[in-house]
């Protein structure tokens, strides 16, 4: 499952930082999921909690998961806009074709494909 691999990366990033700062406990972890990252928030939470069971630093950690909107930029005219997904959330999203609403040109997503660990709250 995809979400488990993302959760492992999150745990890696968070535990490395917590250990670097000699934290006794990680109280909170804030993660932002890109709208088109194909990560299901419930499954991610499930995976994070499963990983948390195996490490005392993550005992009782609160995982705060938020969604990041997707922004596309037209390669031809430079226009930027927020891309909405018209599908309901399901295990894997089907995003719409990313075509510039201003000039019909090809565009690329500059935000919204990735997952980001925003930060942590630790007890030292």
């Amino acid at each position, binding site marked *: 499952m995809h979400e488990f691999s993302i959760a492992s990366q999150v745990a890696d990033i968070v535990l490395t930082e917590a250990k670097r*700062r000699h934290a006794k406990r990680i109280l909170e972890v804030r993660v932002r999921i890109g709208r088109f990252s194909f990560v299901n928030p419930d499954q991610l939470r499930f995976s994070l909690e499963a990983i948390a069971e195996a490490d005392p630093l993550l005992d009782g950690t609160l995982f705060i998961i938020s969604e990041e909107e997707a922004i596309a930029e037209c390669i031809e005219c430079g226009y930027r806009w927020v891309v909405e997904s018209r599908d309901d959330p399901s295990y894997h999203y089907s995003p719409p074709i990313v075509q510039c609403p201003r000039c019909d040109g*090809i565009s690329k997503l500059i935000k919204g494909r990735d997952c*980001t660990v925003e930060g942590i709250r630790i007890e030292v």
Partner: protein
Amino acid sequence: MLWGMIMSKIIVREDEGEKLDVELERSVTERNKMLADENRRILDSYKVRAIDVMGATGSGKTTLILQICRRLKDRYRIAVIKGDLTSSIDSDMIMREGVDSVQVNTGRECHLDASQIRRALEKLDLSNLELIFIENVGNLICPAEFPLGSHKRVVVISVTEGPYTVVKHPFMFMDADVVVVNKMDLSEAMRVDPDKLVQDIRRVNPRAHIVKAICRDGMGIDEVIRALDL
């Protein structure tokens, strides 16, 4: 007051039990990108070219690789890295052609990642290779997000997947160098217009080289080889 008195070092530490907010803003896919770049450096140092082959299950990825290997194995020293959740069915087929194959079983992971490729590269004798095909897990979604460090990307779709494959999976096609539209002989039976698929691909990726093929019969294989500069 004594001159030359040594000042003691003053360090301000957090109090015990103090709570600290640490801002990180770290991308989760960053680590994979870093590992992918490392893989690329390793390949370049041995002058080995790696080619990604992606596509849905049953689209024809393995058949394409087999056909290409048959035509090129006397010209290049080739190996194949094959990703699958379980089994070694495809790897076995490839080895029967006399081509080295490393099987990566991803377990429940639906895509190959750069760290798995790194381990696979360590199992190969890179000083004795010129070309590596990396066949990803059958999946048109996740592999697009996990670069592996290769030089070119081939995406295989077949008319048997229906008319909406490209429209529904734009990201996979945006980063492709070559797109193979396979099983052309079945387009009438499927009532799928391959030219419409070609149009869909061009809209998402105007630069991709599109090849209509019947991989099983060898049709289109030479064009794919040329499109890959091989």
